């Protein structure tokens, strides 16, 4: 897999994880709104579990996302110089 494909895959995964991380965070602090909005599916305790579970994936994906973008940018700069 080339870097560009990897970057795209990480980007999509990171977007999904960020959104779920954000919504589960709201499920903790704003449970009176989120629980009825989700039809009772996203309860406060479930939100806690999802939010805690996603902390490390979020950090790792953020790091990967930054590294891949920088690597691709450096690669392009090198190509342009030659």
């Amino acid at each position: 897999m080339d870097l560009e494909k990897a970057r795209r895959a990480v980007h999509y995964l990171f977007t999904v994880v960020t959104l779920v991380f954000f919504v589960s965070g709201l499920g903790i602090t704003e449970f009176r709104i989120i629980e009825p909005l989700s039809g009772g599916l996203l309860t406060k305790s479930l939100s806690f579990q999802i939010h805690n579970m996603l902390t490390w994936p979020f950090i790792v994906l953020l790091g990967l996302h930054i590294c891949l973008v920088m690597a691709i940018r450096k690669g392009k700069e090198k190509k342009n110089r030659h």
Partner: protein
Amino acid sequence: MKKIFTALLIVVIMLSAGCLQQAPVQLNGTEINDYKGEKLSSVNDFRENSIKGPQYVNESVYKLKIIGLVNNPKTYTYREVIDNHQHYSKVMTLNCVEGWSVKILWEGVLVRDLLKEADPKMEANTVIFHAYDGYSSAFPIGYFTDKDILMAYKMNNVTVPSERGFPFVLVAEDRWGYKWVKWITEIELSNDTSYEGFWESRGYSDTGNLNESFIK
């Protein structure tokens, strides 16, 4: 430029969602901010996260009931609880499962004193606190006989405001914040050790011990 703007927007939304300022609570007096050299949090440092929002209990019709497995069921008015029992103060920290905490000087009466007057039956082993909004939480009776647990009517030297649990809030020391029942209306003695309160029936720990995870 567009990407930076989007990233900034996301950060602002995330921060604002978690840290929205709530309206300051109207206090009946001036709260103190330190006690014997110990720095205290403010009444306004709490996050409002009760199940149905703040409850406004009318003092003139309020009754505190002690019922269930007792030989002498009791009903007190707000003034009877305060005027007919010894008062105690202590600085205690409430640790919320959401990650915030507040250190407050609490003033109240001992739950043990109230239980003694109701004279629990031999088989009573569980104390269930019921609140005005339908909230409840249970404790083993030993928690109140072994420790000096307060039911507070004052915090930081001001009357507990409605937003924080007027008329009475349980100062459940060494327990997570969801065990600190607000707007207490009923104390029920029971022999049902498997009773689950509001959050306990939704996956939270029954004991609510601070040194354990709050998720079952």
